[in-house]
């Protein structure tokens, strides 16, 4: 079998351990003592930060005071600049993810169902995917220029791999004995798809999707920092050029919160698609 490259790129499923850790993290929101302890470190950082600003350990240009950052955050939120930039970025992510995941799922199904297609296409795709997404940036910049095509191609590339790998594996995820049970029960083709193939496949596809979204978000920030005239990454890089570090701080937090929220939504979807593992 042509699995020489295949073994480097493994399907990624969320471990049951990670799920219970998530539940443990959730409990913290209810326990006031845990909230207080959790806020201790951020509070300490803000205090040290304020003192550093007061003592002018770093130039105020590169270390604005916490109050300045808070004021800037308010201005950006109220003024709408932040949401405009974030909206553009999210739109790019959604379009690129749609393209990349569609391609990944279609080719994943093809290679997963047919050993022959996998033998022809699999090694090439897996070989090409050894090139990190960021390294495609200069290539795509020459091919597509620095317009929307560049972001779309880059995000599609970033989200393609996890969906392709996971979908391909998902097609073979149902254990052989499940199919034997289906034979014994004389399930028809549709019932078999609904009761055997899909339940085994969906959780893997869902975690591929979650990973694809995370990859897409990371690489979009880079693309927007290097080659964009709008979007949250551009806002950050541009503010850095102007030495408006207060805006940089705000954008870092917004990028973090956005990434976290998208991941939380995907975790929820993943849980809905595979309730039996979530309850395991």
């Amino acid at each position, binding site marked *: 079998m042509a699995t020489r490259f295949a073994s480097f790129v493994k399907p990624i499923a969320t471990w049951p351990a990670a799920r219970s850790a998530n539940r443990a993290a959730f409990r913290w929101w209810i326990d006031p003592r845990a909230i207080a302890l*959790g806020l201790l470190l951020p509070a300490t950082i803000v205090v040290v930060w304020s003192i550093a600003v007061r003592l002018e350990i770093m130039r105020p240009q590169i270390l604005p005071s916490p109050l300045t950052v808070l004021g800037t955050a308010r201005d950006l939120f109220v003024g709408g600049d932040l949401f405009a930039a974030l909206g553009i970025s999210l739109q790019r992510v959604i379009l690129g993810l749609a393209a990349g995941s569609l391609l990944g799922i279609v080719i994943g199904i093809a290679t997963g169902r047919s050993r022959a297609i996998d033998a*022809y296409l699999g090694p090439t795709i897996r070989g090409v995917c*050894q*090139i*990190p997404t960021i390294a495609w940036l200069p290539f795509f910049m020459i091919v597509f220029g620095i317009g929307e095509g560049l972001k779309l191609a880059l995000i599609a590339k970033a989200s393609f791999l996890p969906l392709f790998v996971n979908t391909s594996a998902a097609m073979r995820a149902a254990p052989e004995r499940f199919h034997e049970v289906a034979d014994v029960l004389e399930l028809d083709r549709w019932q078999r798809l609904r009761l055997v193939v899909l339940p085994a496949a969906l959780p893997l596809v869902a975690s591929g999707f979650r990973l694809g979204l995370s990859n897409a978000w990371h690489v979009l920030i880079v693309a927007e920092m290097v080659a964009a005239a709008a979007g949250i990454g551009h806002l950050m890089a541009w503010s850095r050029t102007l030495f408006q*570090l207060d805006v*940089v701080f705000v954008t*870092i937090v917004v*990028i973090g919160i956005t990434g976290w929220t998208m991941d939380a939504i995907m975790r929820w979807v993943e849980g809905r698609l595979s309730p039996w593992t979530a309850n395991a």
Partner: protein
Amino acid sequence: MRFDARAFVVPIVLIALWAIASSLHLVDPHVIVPPATVAATLVQMLGGADYWTAVGSSLARVCGGFVLGGAVGLVAGVVLGISRIAERIGAPTLNGARSVALFAWIPLLTAWFGDGEIAKVALIALAAFFPVALNTERGCRQVPAALLEVGRVLEFDRWTTVRRIVLPAASRSIITGLQLGLTTAWIGTIGAEYLIDQGTGIGIALSSARIDNRMDMILIYMLTLALMGLALNLVVRRSVVDD
């Protein structure tokens, strides 16, 4: 692992199409560079010093950043993993910081540390830190209670417990973290070099090749990155087999 010739059909067809399209002048030679030109550039680059300097710089950087970030991550992971109170204080902040896309730290790092080596290595260290810290913490937390009881019976002090019981029991998880950390450190290296293009390195070479519109050089550096990533994977896998 059997040799399967079917794997080579698609690449050969693609290269043939590429050669034919180039020789018939169907495509812009600046965008789709003829294969012969790429081969000539490759020979020239492999013979020159710049290419090897870039490869060496990137390797040195990924090692430096990985060792730094991995060491800090290991210590942080053990502390968070064995102490409930440390976990409650540190984990929320750590998880928050982890949610930020890695390269979003670059504007802040360059503002603080300048465009030199420090900002780049700091970013690579950050890239390696999170997976190492996270997996170490998980491993230390899941040490079987029976083993810890043995330590109590033998009246180990805290340090001895960590060294003789916790670390060996968590080693599998720690190794997973180190492997993941090396992979993310490698991605971090390329990104840091590309975004902070000062000095030498493959990412920096890619960036200047893009500015000079040298698609042939871009392709060669991309191939280099793929091969180095593959080599890194092999090193990582070898370390598992030895384990």
